[in-house]
């Protein structure tokens, strides 16, 4: 094991990985320290704060569990079936994850709200209405956002099982049950914990969704408590403490997942598309078709309603919204490039010695409160520059670090398989350094890299992030313009801007993801 890191990454690579981890730590823990340092008096957490911690844990754990449990049959259905439009559907189903929160909430309410389609239908047939507001609403929304992410992460696990193993299973006459036991279950053991943590941590920092669909302050999360500490109480010390609690929860979840996860150990294959003889029965086919249909309705109907409302407005959007769209695309592309450049050395270093810690450092970006991060950066930059002058570069950097965990999640399983399958061969050939990166690592990681880059671009596109704290004239991004339109009563224009944002995010995601998949059947 000791020579693994050296074999895969070389000393230079490890140093690079450590440098990236250091940068992430500076941005996450460093900004938190800056906020704590600026606080005038130390204060503790009150009972309301602990109630927020409890609710946050409850909703995040439930959201992650439901998302991951539902994602397994969805991913299995997509892994077993080949049909026209399959790749388009997979990309479209990723859309909820990249939507700005406020748009997604209005889309969900158009389906599940008081005057939504579901209640209209229930009323029409004389059944009692259902209310989305409450814990159920928080869970529906978080599953809506994160089921696509969980599905894609798990689907990658299926795609990573070499086709030869399914061929062997078929020649041994194994049915769906046995394939499940010998191939799918070990794969899930390797992939599920990571997917669960990713969703858990995303939900950890939820605020506006949890409050709106949770129906009121009973659904107060840690992030809202941080907001209150800043805005209502101006208690920086409490804000920093709460942000530290958020990090601790993230690390605890990561540690737990690392204990549960086991490498699947399938070895390398020949990259042939997998034929799935085990899924040939009519009953399984019906089951898969049903699952795909259900999840498509659940994820796409709210989006369709957002489109329906906004499309007629797009043509009439003012020029400044288009200018902001161009700016947002530029920011997204820059932060994607940066994110991939950060993720690759970090992921390679994370497969080596002390890798768990490096992986954990990479995940911290997700658990960061954007308010603490923005304020901390503001405090750190202010002695040297006008923070407003750096609005766009800072946004590029922060978006890259926030997307890093997702790219890392996509890369790591593939990279570990790569090391297990090709590590000895490339060591015996003396393949290392950049030659190894160019000839082995990058080609083998093409699909997860494309997926990760697509996610990074789309997330950067849709994220309001720190720009709201730094914005100066001429630095507005598309999400900020969307919020400003809403703040000025212009709900129709905002709906048009939302469609533009959705289209651009999906377009960017599609281009990268498609480019990464190339000919492969993922």
């Amino acid at each position, binding site marked *: 094991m000791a020579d693994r890191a050296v074999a895969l990454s070389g000393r230079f690579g490890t140093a690079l990985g450590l440098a990236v981890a250091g940068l992430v730590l500076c941005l996450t823990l460093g900004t938190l320290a800056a906020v704590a340092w*600026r606080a005038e008096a130390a204060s503790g957490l009150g009972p309301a704060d602990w*109630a927020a911690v409890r609710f946050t844990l409850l909703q995040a754990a439930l959201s992650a569990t439901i998302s991951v449990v539902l994602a397994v049959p969805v991913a299995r259905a997509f892994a077993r079936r080949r049909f026209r439009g399959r790749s388009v559907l997979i990309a479209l189903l990723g859309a909820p994850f990249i939507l700005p929160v*406020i748009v997604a*909430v*209005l889309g969900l*309410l158009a389906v599940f*709200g*008081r*005057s*939504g389609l579901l209640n209209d239908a229930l009323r029409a047939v004389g059944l009692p209405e259902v209310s989305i*507001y409450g814990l159920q609403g928080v869970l529906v929304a978080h599953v809506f956002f994160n089921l696509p992410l969980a599905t894609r992460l798990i689907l990658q696990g299926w795609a990573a099982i070499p086709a030869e193993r399914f061929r062997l299973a078929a020649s041994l006459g194994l049915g769906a049950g046995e394939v499940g036991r010998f191939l799918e279950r070990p794969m899930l053991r390797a992939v599920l914990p990571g997917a669960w943590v990713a969703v858990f941590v995303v939900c950890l920092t939820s*605020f*506006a969704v949890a*409050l*709106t*669909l949770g*129906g*009121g*302050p*009973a659904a*107060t999360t840690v992030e*809202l408590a941080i*907001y*209150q500490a*800043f*805005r*209502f109480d*101006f208690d920086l010390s409490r804000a920093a403490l709460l942000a530290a609690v958020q990090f601790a929860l993230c690390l605890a979840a990561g540690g737990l997942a690392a204990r549960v996860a086991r490498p699947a150990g399938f070895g390398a294959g020949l990259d042939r598309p997998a034929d799935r003889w085990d899924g040939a029965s009519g009953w399984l086919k019906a089951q898969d078709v049903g699952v795909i249909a259900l999840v498509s309705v659940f994820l796409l109907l709210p989006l369709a309603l957002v489109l329906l409302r906004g499309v007629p407005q797009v*043509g009439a959007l003012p*020029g*400044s919204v*288009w*200018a902001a*769209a*161009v*700016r947002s695309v530029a920011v997204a592309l820059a932060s994607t490039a940066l994110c991939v450049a950060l993720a690759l050395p970090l992921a390679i270093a994370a497969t080596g010695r002390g890798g768990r810690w490096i992986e954990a450092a990479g995940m911290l970006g997700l658990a960061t409160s954007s308010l603490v991060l923005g*304020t901390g950066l*503001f*405090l750190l930059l*202010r002695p040297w520059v*006008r923070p*407003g002058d750096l609005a766009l570069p800072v946004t590029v950097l922060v978006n890259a670090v926030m997307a890093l965990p997702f790219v890392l999640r996509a890369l790591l399983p593939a990279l570990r398989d790569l090391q297990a399958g090709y590590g000895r061969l490339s060591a015996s050939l003396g393949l290392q350094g950049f030659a190894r990166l160019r000839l082995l690592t990058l080609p083998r990681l093409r699909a997860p890299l494309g997926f990760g880059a697509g996610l990074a671009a789309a997330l950067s596109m849709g994220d309001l992030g720190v720009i*709201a*704290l*730094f*914005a*100066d*004239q*001429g630095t507005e991004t598309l999400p900020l*313009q969307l*919020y*400003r*339109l*809403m*703040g*000025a*009563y*212009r*709900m129709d224009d*905002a709906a048009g801007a939302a469609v533009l944002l959705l289209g651009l995010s999906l377009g960017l995601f599609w281009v990268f993801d498609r480019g990464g998949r190339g000919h492969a059947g993922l």
Partner: protein
Amino acid sequence: MRHFLIAAGILSASLAAADDAPATTKPVLVVYAPDYFGSEWGPGPQIEADFEAICACDLQFSTGDVLGRLMIEGAATEADAIIGLNTDATARARATGLFVPHGQDTSDLTMPVAWQDEVFLPFNWGETAFVYDESRLPNPPASFEALLDAPESLKIVIQDPRSSGSGLALLLWVKAVYGDEAPEVWARLKPKILTVTKGWSESYGMFTAGEADMVMSYTTSPAYHLIAEEDATKKAAIFPEGHYFMVELAAQLAGSDQPELAQAFMDFILSDTFQSKIATGNWSYPARLDPARLPEGFAALPRPGKTLFYTETEAEALRAPALAEWLEVMSQ
């Protein structure tokens, strides 16, 4: 595609303009403002153009959380003036000791509340109100009491006082009408509260999407629909118990490196040029403007018979306990 090209053209032109600008000799006046004020769809850009036409300076609105930023920066702030604070924040702002008097005569303001503050200068005002759509709610509650007694099927959406100024204003409104009975009032209102949102925008979006029957907003909100959308169905429910007064304020900083410009900006705020941009720029009542000069839609708005108001000292003292009461009832 054409829009894309136009937008790209505008963008590159503006970038080029920024690059070409010579080391400008014009002094810069930095004014911190809330996001909605400085946004393209707020009053900021027009006011900036008007002021720059007379000041031989470059007025820059820097948007964000005005008070939070000021408290973090302290005396080292680059702001020369600030605009957009409410009375629920001015006590804390005043306590920083960063401001100097505005030097304006506030004896003839067109506000329902007399104003004597030497530091914080009003530029616009409004009153809290629940807004409804008469095509969906033909018989709105005629008083606060009627709202409390309304059937549970009447759903309102409000904002969280911890993250929203209008949410905090609602807390103070309830306190001003009901005083110590506020907890019982919240308990009666709670079944009708569909949900609580982070900010005003989310609430108002839910209302216009038809999800809620009434939304916590302002008496002036219907003017937007009337003037910008020619839609007369949105109305503010006027309650005889009174409506809470919200005034937005500006102030100049003692540490400004452009004290004359900051003073000129203060002088400009109560001018007709500035004040005439408020009604349709910020959808509020101007602090000093002949009512005859208000746009037609504003003149037609019904005015509450009674205006409720807490001074900043009262508001600051009530803020924390009122929030605690609210959380106690609403978290159950």
